[in-house]
């Protein structure tokens, strides 16, 4: 059977918050991969009566297609061996599928299949070193079922730091644009601004946003301001994507709030906020600062965040924030990989297990939930586990259940180590339960809007026909982990819970303009310091057309 060019999804309870539809029984019509207003009588139908219909899921922040992920894969043969993934049997006439392995960092084809099986149809790798972008695109080529793109690491880049030092912010903006084009990137990413460069020198890290970076006239604040302004000036569809300084450190909420204030009034996205919302420090025990941080977010509509929820169980920490991984290695004694990357960024990897009975793990779990439950605007506080850092994307259904069902949450709360939870809002009892529409916002409509993806995250006319259909189930984790149908670009890729088709995903990238006057100076920089020829650096022959800027 080939995928029909037309399909009417009949009578499902549609949750399409971007178009103001909250559970109404409606038909959704699809033609040639897009949502259309109506179809002629006799068009093929899919009976969705009694089911829940949502746009395909959009993952705003995960790590699944990068050189760093590949280093992480190499580090966990034990996890792969425990989770073999034979090739799924697709529909007759479809190309044969591919096998792979799972674990916290699955192989590429398995990643695509598992995203599809979860009802997700778009995902972004949130941290790619520019020099390794060519590799990321190769991995994306082998990650079917999801449209995808990459965020490009810039917050510790030598050429950028030099421009900031010299007060050349326009040139820094042009460089950011050139780098996005050269790498086929989608957004500007900052990780621990200045801190990774400090790690590579004797300074080892920065601790406030006003620290000098390795004795230079550059501060994290200046990096934040420069790249935030650059992303906005370039009218990128997604604003600058910021991983703040001091990730995972007690008392880091002060740094997080200072970072938000540094770019106040300007669009900016702060990622995996859970890892940056701790109180304590300075001799005081760890505590939750979720309420304080969320107060700021709630009051500032220009700020958006994804949560980076921690889920109990095995995880893999993969980050460009290399100094953090060194601390994690020293405290955990686990395997540790560190790769310093070419005057651009870093890479640190440590496998980790979050345990209910570990006080810090329990605090992290609680802080994430508090951020969700204290959020007043789900459009700006969206779901992530920072896959695989806080847990796998496969844990999203369990997280949704925690958000929608207080009784499940309270039961788990009874089991976790309470040592650091005194005074936390969760321990004090947060009664809120997310609705299906709010779940549709934080998993689809919100991320798509924050990413500037006009044809994603909704089911209005002209949208991509990416649709997920769930059978209702009293067990919400089961409901969200096994969609009944998933439709990608109009093709039924999951039927009755089984993967039936695995189309290649589309590449999502931008191509902002810049002043060519940048190039002679940049070429000189490459000739003096780079080990890759300037002319060989850009990734050529990328598939698809760039997404237009906002």
């Amino acid at each position: 059977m080939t995928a029909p060019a037309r399909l009417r999804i009949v009578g499902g309870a549609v949750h399409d918050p971007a178009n103001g539809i909250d559970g109404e029984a409606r038909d959704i019509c699809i033609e040639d991969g897009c949502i259309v207003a109506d179809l002629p009588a006799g068009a093929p139908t899919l009976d969705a009566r009694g089911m829940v219909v949502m746009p395909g899921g959009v993952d705003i922040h995960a790590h699944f297609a990068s050189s760093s992920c590949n280093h992480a894969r190499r580090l966990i043969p034990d996890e792969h061996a425990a989770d073999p993934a034979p090739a799924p049997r697709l529909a007759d006439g479809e190309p044969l599928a591919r096998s792979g392995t799972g674990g916290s960092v699955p192989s590429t084809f398995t990643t695509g299949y598992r995203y599809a099986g979860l009802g997700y149809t778009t995902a972004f790798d949130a941290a790619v070193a520019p020099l390794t972008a060519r590799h990321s695109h190769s991995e994306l080529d082998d990650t079917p079922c999801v449209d995808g793109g990459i965020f490009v690491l810039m917050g510790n880049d030598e050429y950028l730091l030099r421009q900031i030092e010299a007060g050349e912010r326009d040139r820094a903006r042009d460089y950011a644009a050139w780098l996005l084009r050269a790498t086929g990137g989608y957004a500007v990413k900052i990780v621990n601004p200045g801190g990774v460069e400090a790690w590579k020198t004797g300074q080892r890290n920065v601790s406030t946003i006003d620290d000098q970076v390795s004795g230079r006239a550059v501060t994290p604040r200046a990096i934040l301001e420069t790249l935030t302004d650059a992303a906005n000036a370039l009218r990128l569809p997604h604003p600058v994507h910021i991983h703040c300084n001091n990730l995972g450190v007690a008392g880091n909420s002060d740094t997080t709030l200072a970072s938000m204030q540094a770019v106040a009034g300007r669009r900016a996205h702060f990622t995996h906020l859970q890892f940056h919302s701790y109180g304590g420090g300075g001799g005081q025990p760890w505590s939750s600062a979720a309420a304080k941080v969320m107060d700021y977010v709630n009051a500032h509509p220009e700020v958006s965040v994804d949560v980076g929820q921690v889920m109990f169980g095995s995880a893999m920490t993969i980050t460009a924030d290399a100094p953090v991984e060194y601390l994690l290695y020293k405290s955990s004694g686990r395997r540790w990989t560190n790769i310093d990357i070419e005057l651009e960024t870093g890479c640190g990897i440590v496998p980790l297990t979050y345990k209910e009975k570990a006080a810090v793990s329990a605090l992290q779990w609680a802080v994430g939930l508090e951020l969700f439950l204290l959020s007043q605007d789900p459009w700006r506080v969206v779901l992530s586990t920072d896959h695989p850092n806080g847990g796998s994307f496969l844990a999203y259904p369990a997280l949704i259940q925690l958000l929608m069902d207080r009784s499940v949450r309270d039961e788990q709360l009874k089991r976790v180590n309470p040592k650091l939870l005194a005074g936390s809002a969760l321990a004090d009892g947060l009664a809120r339960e997310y609705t299906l529409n709010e779940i549709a916002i934080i998993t689809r409509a919100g991320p798509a809007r924050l990413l500037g993806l006009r044809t994603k995250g909704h089911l209005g006319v002209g949208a991509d026909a990416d649709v997920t259909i769930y059978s209702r189930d009293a067990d919400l984790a089961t409901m969200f982990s096994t969609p009944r149908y998933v439709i990608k670009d109009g093709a039924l890729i999951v039927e009755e819970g089984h993967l039936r088709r695995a189309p290649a995903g589309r590449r999502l990238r931008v191509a902002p303009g810049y002043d060519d006057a940048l190039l002679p100076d940049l070429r000189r920089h490459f000739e003096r310091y780079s080990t890759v020829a300037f002319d060989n650096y850009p990734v050529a022959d990328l598939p698809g057309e760039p997404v237009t800027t906002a």
Partner: protein
Amino acid sequence: MSPTTRVQSVTCLGCGCGCDDLVIELAGDRIASVSPPCPLGRAWFGDGRVPWAVRRSGEDSTLEAALADAADVLSQAFGHALVVLAPDVSAQAQRAALALADLLHATVETATSDPAAAGLLAAQRRGRTAATLGEVRNRADVLLFWAVDPSARYPRYWSRYAPDPAGTHVPEGRAGRTVIAVTVGQDRGPAGADRELALNPDQEVPALSVMRAVALGNRLGELPPPLQRAAEIAGHLVKARYSAIVHEAEPGAEPGRDPYRAEGLLGLAQALNGPSRAALSSLRAGGNRSGAEVALTWLTGYPMAVTYRSGAPEYRPASRGVAAAAGEAGATLVVGAASALSDVFWSAAGRTPVVVIGPRASETRSPVRVAVDTGVAGIHEGGTAYRMDDMPLRLRPPLPAERAAVDVLTALLAAVRTRAAARAK
């Protein structure tokens, strides 16, 4: 006389350095010169001429007939075929070969040498601290060459990466760096070092242990002279701003390398990151060997020694080895330069049908069922290759390919898919 043309920014895969700054001069359809001069670069490019034959059982054949035969042979060996990722093809060709392996439920072996495999396994046990070559070039103020002189097998490492070039944090170049040469038995460190240490092979791992202890700040008792010297050198590393420990990950001159060398070096580099910063720079051979491991990892999770026999990738590092796998195989597909494979392999593989797709396949010294000549990655074929530090590089071929490996493999994949689909019905 043929007109001369110049092609700039060409990438060389003659060793794992992956220099991409070469200028190739062409005289007609031949490579006339390669600059800057490098003996391995000259040998890698040669005059650029390769055969473009297609053979079936030793006779000239059409490509279609050869691929149909290859598809039959490999399909008949479903569940017990072997795919060998030999050198000199692009990552795109390796990726296509792995699609075939998956489809055939085949076993996959790479050209990973035994010492390199030992290093990969050690890194899986404990992780590793490494850096790209650009970081070594721009930051390292202390370079420790452990039992290797890069001049012979990595001729431009010294001048292109370190210690000679100026870097952002080492503006004086060689004058701003301390070079330490460690010799282990017959594996000599470089000449002209600022400090030296000579060890017998049986002193190597004890010396690494002592050095790690120094890095960790442990108190040491009285040590015999070579180990005392090792402790002193570790003291220099501890005081470095950023040290790079450069070692030969491929086989060296010393026949019996201590199997714990890799673990010792990894442990030392990790420990040095307490008091200082340090990275291990592992020297790997060229021909995109690293690319095979990278592609295999993203597709299976494992860097080498994979079998798809059960229908999903399984890791079998304890029984790895291309010759051993050939002995168990019902048919073998070699993708890449078959000349890199040993006589032991050919003797084991020769009992069953062998298909070779890659550069100079028709010149394979043993009889093969099907041989399809393709271009060489980076000389005739574009795509991506990986440097010794796993950095992906653009290939900018100076010569055209009559037949690209990735295209041949894609056609073979389609033919095998057709047979697999028929089998599934």
